[in-house]
């Protein structure tokens, strides 16, 4: 259950080591370690979807409920407080994700590290193999760094803030921040991370028929107004693409791994599939 070869600091930050036996403290911290590991595992599971086949809704709901349960318990414990503080102190939305992640990474000193999120998800379903190969927690730092560089080179439409979420320690984080400079060249979507939620929403919006710009698309919207898009909402929700920042299991997903949502369902390169989707839709309209 626990990974091999990762540093683990004995958590004595928020816990009282009083006259109680050391065993008690160890049990408590091992419980919180287990809980954290379970939380990480659950979040990874929520992100990993088959590329071509719809994810199993029952499984997703059960995992999401588990995440929610852990979150509630952590809130009661007070360990969730730190996470929310991180959000509050994030301040401006521009680099909200970046900062939040960074703070989260730092605050993890006393808890288990979010080692699970070092997997860059633009590989789509192949991620699953990576995670399954090793124990869930043992993707190495070097892989992360190389993945980040690869992302920069590929110059995709992803927002850089997405990639920032996958860092495991500050070193890798710095690399990505350097990388974010490269990303400013990408103009296809709104490059600024200020609009990252909306942009990612647009990128993801290929599945949301209603998410079109006014004009020619309004006719589209009308036509598809009775299409049940709720499942797309679920996709959005489960993969952490909420625009409203509120604390929930999906926001945790959002903050810790904001990039992983889109690629697990949309294949790369995303821009091209956007056009394909639109073509499909136009064919349907014209055909009828």
């Amino acid at each position, binding site marked *: 259950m626990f990974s091999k070869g990762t540093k683990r600091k004995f958590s004595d930050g928020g816990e009282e080591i009083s006259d109680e036996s050391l065993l008690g403290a160890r049990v408590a911290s091992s419980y919180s370690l287990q809980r954290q590991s*379970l939380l990480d595992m659950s979040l990874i599971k929520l992100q990993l979807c088959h590329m071509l086949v*719809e994810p*199993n809704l029952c499984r997703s709901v059960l995992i999401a409920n*588990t995440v929610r349960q852990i979150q509630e318990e952590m809130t009661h414990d007070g360990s969730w407080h730190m996470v929310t503080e991180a959000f509050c102190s994030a301040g401006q939305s521009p680099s909200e994700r970046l900062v939040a992640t960074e703070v989260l990474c730092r605050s993890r000193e006393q808890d288990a590290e979010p080692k699970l999120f070092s997997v860059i998800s633009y590989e789509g379903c192949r991620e699953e193999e990576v995670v399954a190969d090793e124990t869930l927690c043992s993707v190495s730092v070097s892989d992360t760094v190389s993945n980040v560089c690869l992302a920069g080179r590929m110059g995709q439409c992803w927002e850089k803030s997405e990639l920032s979420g996958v860092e495991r320690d500050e070193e890798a984080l710095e690399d990505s921040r350097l990388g974010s400079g490269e990303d400013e060249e990408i103009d296809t979507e709104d490059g600024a991370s200020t609009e990252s939620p909306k942009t990612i929403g647009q990128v993801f919006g*290929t599945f949301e028929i209603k998410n079109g710009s006014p004009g020619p698309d309004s006719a589209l919207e009308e036509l598809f107004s009775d299409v049940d898009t709720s499942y797309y909402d679920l996709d959005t929700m489960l993969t952490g693409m909420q625009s409203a920042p509120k604390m929930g299991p999906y926001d945790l997903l959002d903050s810790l791994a904001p990039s992983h949502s889109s690629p697990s369902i949309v294949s790369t390169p995303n821009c091209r599939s956007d056009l394909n989707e639109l073509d499909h839709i136009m064919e349907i309209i014209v055909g009828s």
Partner: protein
Amino acid sequence: MGEDSESPKINHSFLRDYVTEADVISTVEFNQTGDLLATGDKGGRVVIFQRETESKDESEELGESGEYNVYSTFQSHEPDFDYLKSLEIEEKINKIRWLPQQNAAHFLLSTNDKTIKLWKVSERDKRPEGYNLKDEEGRIKDISTVTSLRVPVLKPTDLMVEVRPRRIFANGHTYHVNSISVNSDGETYLSADDLRINMWHLDITDRSFNIVDIKPANMEDLTEVITAAEFHPQHCHLFVYSSSKGTLRLCDMRESALCDKHSKIFEEPEDPGNRSFFSEIISSVSDVKFSHSGRYLLTRDYLTVKVWDLNMEKGPVETYQVHEYLRSKLCSLYENDCIFDKFECVWNSTDSVIMTGAYNSFFRMFDRETGRGVTLESWRESSKPRAVLRTRRIYTGGRRRRGDVGVDSLDFTKKILHMAWHPAENIIAIAATNNLYIFQDRVNAENLKT
């Protein structure tokens, strides 16, 4: 109980040592007489087996019965693609249900994630011969050669089984269909997906009636899904559905058109001593079955099978531990996703025995009268045709006997998820990956107690 069964084995996979994903059996179902057994697989195929009628010449022991041989094979569902979502629709057959027989033909419903189909299975063993205007090959005859008229006669030919799709019930479901159930009225059936249950008329394909809808207005509030549903065997207005939170809801369609409000809800209060992060997941009901009598419900959750009395909502009347030794392994099972496996459960013909599957090719049978359970194995290497099935044991402590299997050596890839029990006799069909095992009980009825 199971110790004296003999086991003719049927393996319809041609490549014995190589399991193709498409050959994995995903559903098994006997028809109402038990003469036909249908299996569906991941590749969208349906294979129907027929029981051979006993030869009257051979001397018969008591309980001697025929074997099942392949009767017909057909492709029920093809892989499909949802263009709006850019996602594949799997052709895997999730469920097969037979309709009660009304004439010489047999009808069955098969469903994948989205579409339900009604198939007609009919035999043709005669063909007309002696047409006046056509010759034997079907070519039109020259009129001038016809000198006299004759009446065509039916001559026997080799048996031909024809399977034709009669109805296609499409576009009824946004989410994945997990259950279908034929109503006792013989005219309607229900289909359930994760969030909705629809009722269809067997003759009408362009319309269905939504009877349960648990989809929240805001999908972010979704915490519970429907996992299985079934009509009552006698009362055509009653049906039950189970949820991922471990509740069962009995609904009466006479109460209102939309049965979101249940008539009865069956829920067992949680045991605070056993609470863990996995409590909810393991309480999720994977299968629900009415007893033949219609008085009881059988449910399967991850670690137990439970019998509920329809008259008592506050808890099950019987609980049987299927593999309690897995309780300490829940975290690993969560990690490898085994905790989400959906096992089926079945009643025997007299509602006195219940059966369900487990891991390592094991399946369990519980005698409701004695409360005892046995573990049996369906695995090619350890059972030969007509061999007597031996009971197995899992070693969890105490004295270890030879042949006991340790918990850590269980093979979690060999899971018995799908099974069926003959409606009248002690014959069971067990699906183990791509193999189908049929076990028959040859013991005298009086000797069932062991």
